[in-house]
């Protein structure tokens, strides 16, 4: 699988894009937020940060199921077939303060300008354990990648 063109596109999107749309559950309703993310090299985990007073933080405390959409759209009708979007599905867990330093090193390598934000005592860092990726390309082609079946 590691050689497939589609998988390479997933890796490229996660590597090149800085922001994604995070979907959470707000008391049974969908809730979406833009977040700055960083994926681990093997893309099994994705990190993002939020302050604890936000609605998405409260949503995550109540339900850890999330979706994160990452895309490269150009917002032009003609570019529709060129756009690709990958959605990660999984569970998000707040990481303990003891782990912050290690995680922040790679997160800040991706988003150095967010240093003050992620270093504040009021900011929580979340790790999404990715269960599957859905890749959409050429408008309607959808490919699913199940991470529990992925060997490496």
């Amino acid at each position, binding site marked *: 699988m590691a050689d497939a063109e589609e998988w390479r596109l997933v890796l490229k999107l996660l590597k090149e894009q800085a922001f994604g749309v995070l979907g959470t559950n707000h*008391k049974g309703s969908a809730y979406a937020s833009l977040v700055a993310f960083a994926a681990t090299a093997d893309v099994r985990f994705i990190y993002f940060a939020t*302050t604890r*007073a*936000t609605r998405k933080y409260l949503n995550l405390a109540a339900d850890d199921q999330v979706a994160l959409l990452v895309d490269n759209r150009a917002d032009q009708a003609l570019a529709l077939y060129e756009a690709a979007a990958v959605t990660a599905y999984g569970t998000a867990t707040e990481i303990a303060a003891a782990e912050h330093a290690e995680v922040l090193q790679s997160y800040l390598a991706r988003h*150095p*300008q967010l240093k003050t*934000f992620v270093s504040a*005592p*009021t*900011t929580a860092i979340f790790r999404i354990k990715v269960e599957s990726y859905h890749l959409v390309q050429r408008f309607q082609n959808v490919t699913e990648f199940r991470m529990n079946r992925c060997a490496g």
Partner: protein
Amino acid sequence: MRWLIPFADVSRATVKNLGGKALMLARLQQEGFLVPAGYCLPVSVYHEFLVETGLDAFIAMELQRKDFREMRWEELWDVSLRIRNHFLTRTWPKAMKEKLLKDLSEGPANWSSVAVRSTAPGEDSASQSFAGLHESRVMLQGAEAILEAIRIVWASLWSDGALLYRHELGLDPGKSGMAVIIQEMIIGDVSGILFTRAPQDGSVMMAEAVWGLNQALVDGSIEPDRWQFSRATGTVTEKHEVVHTVALRPTTHGTELSPLGEAQRGRSPFDTVFCQELFQAGCQLEASLGQALDIEWTSSNKSLHILQARPITTSLQSKDGDERPWYLSLHRSLDNLEALRMELEQQVLPGMDHDAEKMSAVELSQLSNRKLAEEYLNRRGILDKWLSIYKDKCIPMAHGLRLFGEFYNDLIKPEDPHEFINLLHSDDLLAVQRNRQLHEMAELLRKDHRLLQQLKDGCELSEGSNLKGMLEVFNHEYSGINWVLHQDLDLTSWLVKLAEQDGDDKNEGLKQADREHAFFAQVPEAESGMAGRILAVAKASYLLRDNDNLYLGKVRAGVSAAEQEIRKRIDSGASEGLDKILPETTEKKVFSRYESQRESVESPENWQLARQLVGQPAGPGVNSGPARVLNNASVLTDFKAGEVLVCDAIEPNMTFLAPLAAAIIERRGGMLVHGAIIAREYGIPCVTGIPEATKVIKSGDQLTVDGYLGIVTIDRGDG
């Protein structure tokens, strides 16, 4: 390819990458004028540094954080300080550093001392001048010191003054860049400036001179002699001479003002022969460059060196509302600030206090209408006088803080560019002292259950009682409180309220001595004297920043009392001769940038609800509580402990509320506004600079205030 371009190789074609100042100096050198040897570091290197260090993203974030038009000067300074600190705390990318060190080793690193100056493209032309808005560093030795200075000069592209000026010119700060001149330092015996066409009289040249180095003249710490001579003949037409006692001289760690020796003390740095030389040089330079010039020069061993030449700016000289000169006046030297401090402490504040005392001694109710009108107008005049002095003296003194802030950040390179404020904490803040007195009285009341109950039942305090005596003293000392309320504050009921609330005075008294000790341990020995002086000025500045407003508040209280008496008579119909005497607005604005340019924010429609607002983190900590919006003085007394104070600005006279607040939100922005100072003193989370705060937040809204990040979250429920 080398990065450093020697003056000899600079051509007009490279002006976009080097800036007009570099081009001018190179051209003068190429035409045979005596210009100190120098190199230029092009703008492309600045841009490479930004990209390599990721600074470009940080700067973009800072600039987009808030609409520029909504920023007050204090917020601009904060933006500029944060950007400056990003430059200082970034390490040089390895490859860039190696390349620069190699270039420097072939010239500047071997000079006995070096000056590093700005040369931003588009910086100096006939229609605009950034003179004084960007930084220079002089008397540097060795490559490392030059590398450090380059970052500081680059950072000064983002000085508050430069940001404001670019905005006024319609230039996009995000698209600007900075080249640097690295020049051999000439230690002049006499230095000065020369306008080949005097600003006020185009028929004469005008020169100014001081003994020693030029920086003292440029920053205003030494008053120069001024001579004018006819452009046609060179004949001296006017002399303005001062008594010279000091000169700026080089030291091992920079420069300092030192007393003049016997031969120079009291003598003018000018003489007729030297003036002729200046006149001739001015004529030749003007002929060579084809335009009138503003020149900085120094004379060493009888040789005249041209340090800088720029076209004389014409378009901004008499433009109404041009605040650049005022901005420039805020950059005071240490000596200047020390003198200003003396003046404020010994003359200005006692003067305000004296006038306020005189006002409070007048029994307004006994005056006839005519006398009351006279008294009111007289008080308005006195207030206007003090407001004007406030702008000219008190606001510039506040910039003692910036002097220390930059010194501290240059030396310590802290992660938090506002860390230096921790060293300025003072128990001498009048607001803190006043709050302490209030709490002492409340504590007394809290322990006396019977008296507390009597007061709650509406009984008066008995004459001669301890508390009554304390209240009288308090009322006399801090009469300014009433100005805020526009009515007599019933201090007794306020005390009852305080006594019934949390008795915890949150001012814990920080370990100031330890912080100072840690700071001085990092100051090189040669600079410790200077560091002590700068810290002393900054502490005075911090203290005066709050206290001057309290004194001004006392004067305002006097005006307000007369105003209230007039209103009372108008309301009762006994106002003959008093109609139309009250102005529609009570006070003119001191300075437009002192306020936000967008003062009024429309109330949004009721289907539009703010859920989260971003301002400036001005006091660390996080806390939640119901909002108490102070958009009307009468609600002040409704304020309860544990509420989040939301206001236009914490007037210094209102700071007695602060210790009871769960958090503070101010519309006005800045780390150095009074609310922020008081919040830090009491360890209360504080967010400033949210212009719409008092409109979109309603009293009772449940708020969470994140003073680390400057975020206010409003819990709207799911409605």
